[in-house]
């Protein structure tokens, strides 16, 4: 009756893999629903007429109709939708952008590495910094460190990313900062192409993007740990004569970190859908800016593509969170 949750890989054919398979099927269904909803919202809400928009303001009706036909917009709604889904499923073809004819799948996949770089880097920073500060604060509640850290966290949570980015640039920008420290925006290079430029161009965006998250995580970690430190099992660990460090790290933190895992998974999932402001200010060619522009332009194919990508990441993050949860907490069963 031993179980091997700690190693999902060993569990092929086990409840775990059946669970994952079921969740993946469910994901496909959810993605269909999401795409349908995005599709319907696009048509339900008054926004632009893509055909007229593409045809140009002087265009006559004949021209608009030609464009409408070209964009597949003259078919009944259900037909448009099925056509879209069919193209996505059979050919991984997400259509082309109304505003510049770019291939949406290309745009998404070529922008994904930047978004992943930005999100993952920031995530590592905020997780490490947030959790560390949260632990230190919880171990010395109401101490000077705690007060400064939590005060700082409040600031971090409320500081708008855009503003923060502008301030940091004004201080450190190579071209116009007080100290010429960080490279001009738009200097992002893919990791595979130029690791140095990749790192230097992303370092400040990482820090800025991670700041508010780090603040939230520090507060979350502190609150959880304070609560956990009062738990009976922590007292048991102390009564066993374990070292303070072991009591805190192995017993209290281990238990206090589970809600962080949930939050982390979801936050990362959402961020993989794109970080609009950070991407814009630092001109990192990621998915966030793409989706923002698409919404501004009523650019359905790009909206659909980015929404699907974002939904995909969020759902995957959810599944991973559940699996990680089951690994962390043996009471949780994947079912």
């Amino acid at each position, binding site marked *: *009756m*031993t179980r091997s949750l700690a190693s999902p890989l060993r569990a092929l054919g086990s409840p775990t893999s059946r669970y994952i398979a079921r969740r993946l099927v469910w994901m496909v269904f959810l993605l269909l629903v999401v795409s349908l909803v995005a599709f319907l919202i696009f048509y339900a809400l008054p926004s632009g007429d893509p055909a007229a928009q593409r045809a140009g303001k002087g265009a006559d009706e004949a021209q608009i109709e030609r464009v409408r036909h070209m964009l597949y917009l003259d078919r009944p709604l259900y037909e448009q939708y099925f056509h879209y889904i069919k193209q996505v499923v059979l050919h991984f073809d997400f259509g082309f952008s109304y505003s510049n004819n770019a291939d949406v799948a290309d745009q998404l996949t070529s922008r994904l590495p930047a978004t992943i770089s930005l999100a993952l880097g920031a995530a590592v920073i905020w997780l490490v910094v947030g959790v560390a500060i949260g632990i230190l604060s919880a171990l010395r509640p109401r101490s000077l460190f705690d007060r400064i850290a939590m005060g700082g966290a409040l600031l971090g949570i409320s500081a708008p990313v855009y503003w923060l980015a502008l301030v940091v640039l004004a201080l450190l920008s190579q071209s116009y900062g007080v100290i010429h420290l960080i490279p001009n925006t738009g200097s992002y290079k893919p990791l595979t192409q130029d690791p140095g430029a990749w790192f230097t161009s992303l370092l400040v965006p990482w820090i800025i993007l991670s700041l508010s998250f780090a603040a939230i995580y520090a507060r979350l970690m502190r609150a959880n740990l304070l609560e956990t*430190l009062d*738990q*009976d*099992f922590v*007292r*048991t*660990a*102390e*009564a*066993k*004569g*374990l*070292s*303070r460090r*072991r009591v805190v790290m192995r*017993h209290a933190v*281990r*238990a206090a970190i589970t809600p962080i895992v949930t939050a982390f998974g979801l936050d990362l999932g959402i961020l993989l859908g794109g970080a609009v402001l950070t991407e814009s200010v630092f001109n990192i060619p990621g998915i966030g800016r793409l989706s923002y522009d698409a919404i501004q332009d009523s650019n359905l194919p790009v909206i659909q593509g980015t929404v699907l990508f974002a939904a995909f990441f969020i759902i995957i993050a959810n599944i991973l969170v559940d699996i990680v949860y089951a690994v*962390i*907490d*043996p*009471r949780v069963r994947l079912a």
Partner: protein
Amino acid sequence: MTEPLLDVRDLRTAIPTEDGDVHAVNGVSFTVEPGKVLGVVGESGSGKSVTMLTLMGLTRRAGAQVSGEVLFGGRDLVTASDRELQRIRGNEIAMIFQDPLSSLHPFYRVGAQITEGIRAHRDVTKKQARARAIELLGLVGIPKPEQRVDDYPHEFSGGMRQRVMIAMALANDPKLLIADEPTTALDVTVQAQILALLERLQQELGMAVVMITHDLGVVAEIADDIVVMYAGRVVEQAPVEQLFRQPRHPYTWGLLRSIPRLDLPRDVDLVPIEGRPPSLIHLTGRCSFQPRCPYVGGCCGEQDPTLDAVAGNEQHRVRCDMPEERRARVWDALSAGRSPSEAAAAVGITSAEEDAA
């Protein structure tokens, strides 16, 4: 007389809270002899747990202010360093707690939790520690211990979990085991099993035990001596048969009247006496039981009474100003089945209300 294993002298603990310092322990003294069982009774909030946690140094993290002495094996645990205390905890003094459901870490296998305690104090291999853990699980009566050692706490019932806790406590052959209401959270049949187990282990292993409980009935069976606590103080202290034969403190009387009997519902035992315990934040400096005492009329002094030996019996101590002769008459009346007010009237004490009127 042999040297006591544990000698607690005038222990005081104040825990800082937002509302002010909670004076949870206000000068507690008692001793535990090697191999003996000390029962500590008292209603909820009387400071039993805080006393025990304090002597193990477990109130330090909450910032408790502690004074007095706790002499154990020649050391004063109040002034001992964190390091020293760490070496003693779980090794020479072990403790088990009220709620076995929450006292085990939910994420670790029970075997790991036991071996962790062993390896914290003994330089043994993982394998040896594991073997010891299996042995201990067997000792506390867990069937198929070599399989269960790899289970998680949630896979055990409440009673089994308390057995695991006991196994964990016994891991390093402690000289003293503090059991803080080990059965309160369990149902009745399981309670009896756990008590029987503790009794058996105490006899087999010859360790001293401090058994904390609300329930005088529990200690009657296994304790050698009894300490009765109220509002952070010891109000009466005596060898077990003396306490039951001739209890001397009005609070103890109340407790004794509440020993569960088959004809009464089980939950009446927890409030033996009407009224609530006093606030431990603002101490009055008078007898803390006075506001609830049915026999208060006339005899109480302005000062808090001291814990004094009963005339002719060094081992029996009581903290009450009531004259000895009146005390005997009240207990006789109560033993005869009279209610406290009837007993008070019988010895000529007017009730508190009449007094006030």
